[in-house]
């Protein structure tokens, strides 16, 4: 207890990091499940179905499989760098998530832990810059993995990947500067608070006096983010027909899993950033006076529970029936818990934040199921000759508008 009173910031931070790490790791695992399931249904397949009801235990099975596979290190590999690369990739991926505030950090709607905002591990006043700092190091994981494997395909994959990530990082950063210009701050919570009001006040629309719509910036950001995370249609680094598996060809067992997790962690980070910068972060799309929206999380979970209950009774047999029954109980219990007025009031922020992140993640997955891969020269010319000029144009227009708006107002 002494410790808590002496270093409330430290103790709160450690608790928040532990909880966030647990949630993010679980989310990463189930994001792979969601991706396989969604793509399967888009392509008229079932996807994972046998391990647990609806394949719900598949991520767990995959995790155990990764842990117990033999960890092969190529004898010609540069041992130290070969081991360092996956650690770098994963730890940087997870570090960036720690910078994101998931709910209100100030005011009466915030939740506090020993006097510290509970929804954010840290709320830096240069959060955006720090996120880009951590993100800009992400390329090391890929480049070093490619180099240290001492093998043809990983080297080519690593080179391609680092060239791609460096190229698209320029557009990524440029597309965000417009938002920063309008808001005049680099702090995530302030960036979100400035978008408060009805949903057309969000930076993507910004339909208000003195606002500059950032729809072009949003499109540029989303495209560059897909390339930055090496996802379809920009997944050249792992074009299997040309490069086997790209930079992680020589990796096996849990080191491979770490690259895999890093990719999904990066997906979550860029979705969070898109949500914060363009879609109003934890703000609700409805006016604050509509109190019925407090019960949306509970109602959503109860609807899920109802569906699961029906599914359990109607379709599941044997052990799957038991597993889905547990899911039903969890969803139902969670739903009822979220209906308690005090709880409902305080989980609004994280609820809307998560909903928006999930929407963007689904968009990612949807794209992977739909689009074919670019050719390498197309990728480069698209990045440098189309995306970068477009984001610079957006920046110039925004800057002009920011300068001219006060003149319009004051005549």
């Amino acid at each position: 207890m002494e410790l808590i009173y002496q270093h409330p910031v430290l103790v709160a931070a450690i608790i928040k990091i532990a909880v966030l790490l647990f949630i993010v790791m679980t989310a990463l695992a189930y994001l792979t499940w969601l991706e396989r399931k969604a793509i399967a249904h888009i392509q008229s397949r079932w996807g994972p179905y046998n391990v647990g009801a609806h394949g719900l235990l598949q991520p767990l099975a995959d995790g155990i499989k990764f842990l117990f596979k033999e960890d092969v290190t190529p004898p010609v590999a540069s041992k130290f760098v070969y081991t360092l690369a996956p650690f770098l990739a994963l730890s940087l991926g997870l570090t960036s998530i720690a910078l994101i505030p998931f709910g209100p950090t100030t005011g009466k709607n915030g939740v506090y832990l020993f006097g510290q905002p509970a929804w954010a591990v840290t709320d830096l006043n240069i959060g955006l810059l720090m996120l880009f700092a951590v993100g800009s190091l992400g390329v090391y994981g890929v480049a070093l993995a490619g180099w240290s494997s001492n093998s043809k395909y990983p080297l080519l994959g690593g080179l391609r990947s680092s060239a791609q990530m460096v190229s698209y990082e320029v557009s990524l950063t440029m597309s965000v500067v417009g938002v920063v210009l309008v808001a005049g701050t680099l702090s995530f919570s302030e960036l979100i608070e400035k978008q408060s009001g009805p949903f057309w006040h969000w930076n993507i629309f910004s339909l208000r006096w003195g606002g500059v719509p950032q729809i072009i910036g949003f499109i540029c950001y989303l495209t560059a983010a897909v390339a930055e995370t090496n996802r379809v249609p920009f997944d050249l680094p792992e074009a299997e027909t040309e490069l086997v598996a790209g930079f992680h060809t020589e990796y096996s067992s849990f080191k491979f899993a770490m690259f895999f997790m890093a990719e999904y962690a990066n997906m979550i980070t860029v979705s969070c950033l898109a949500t914060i910068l363009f879609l109003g972060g934890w703000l609700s799309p409805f006016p604050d006076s509509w109190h019925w929206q407090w019960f949306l999380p509970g109602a959503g979970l109860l609807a899920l529970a109802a569906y699961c209950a029906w599914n359990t009774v109607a379709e599941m047999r044997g052990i799957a029936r038991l597993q889905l029954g547990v899911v039903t109980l969890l969803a139902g219990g969670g739903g009822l818990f979220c209906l308690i007025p005090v709880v409902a009031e305080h989980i609004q922020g994280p609820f809307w934040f998560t909903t928006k992140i999930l929407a963007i993640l689904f968009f990612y997955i949807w794209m992977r199921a739909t689009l074919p891969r670019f050719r390498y020269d197309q990728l480069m010319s698209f990045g440098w000759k189309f995306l970068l000029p477009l984001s610079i144009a957006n920046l110039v227009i925004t800057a002009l508008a920011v300068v001219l708006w006060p003149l319009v107002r004051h005549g």
Partner: protein
Amino acid sequence: MIPMLIFMFCAALAVAGAITLIWSREPIHSALALVLVMMSLAALYLLIGAPFISAVQVIVYAGAIMVLFVFVIMLLNFGLEERTKFSKLAIPGIILAFILMAEIGWRLAHSAGGRTAPLVEASTRDLSEMLFRQYLFPFEATSILILIAVLGALVLARKES
């Protein structure tokens, strides 16, 4: 107490990184050691209350310049560095190093025994005020110099036709 410990740790890391940078015969290990130096310096900037400089240090040096270093090393695939037994330049180098260390030691011994710069958190706004008002001309001149360097690289890289 805790800041002092963090300072000691980061300073030790920076020195260890700098020594590895020179000692290592593998170019990529040297490059990584330099990244380590940059990162520890960024942590030190954080410690003296300059988060903006710290973030920019990471973005520019560790995230951009060193990535290009690593990229070039990967692309050209150098072997191990070759070593000579002894370089004649080492003698003036050692002398200079001793002079520098003596100077730093002398200054430290005669300073008021502590920090002299005021420890205020420099905000992004303060920094931009200085950069874009007080030092606008040097700033613009530097950007033109960099532009010239880019143009020079383009001219050198252009194919002869």
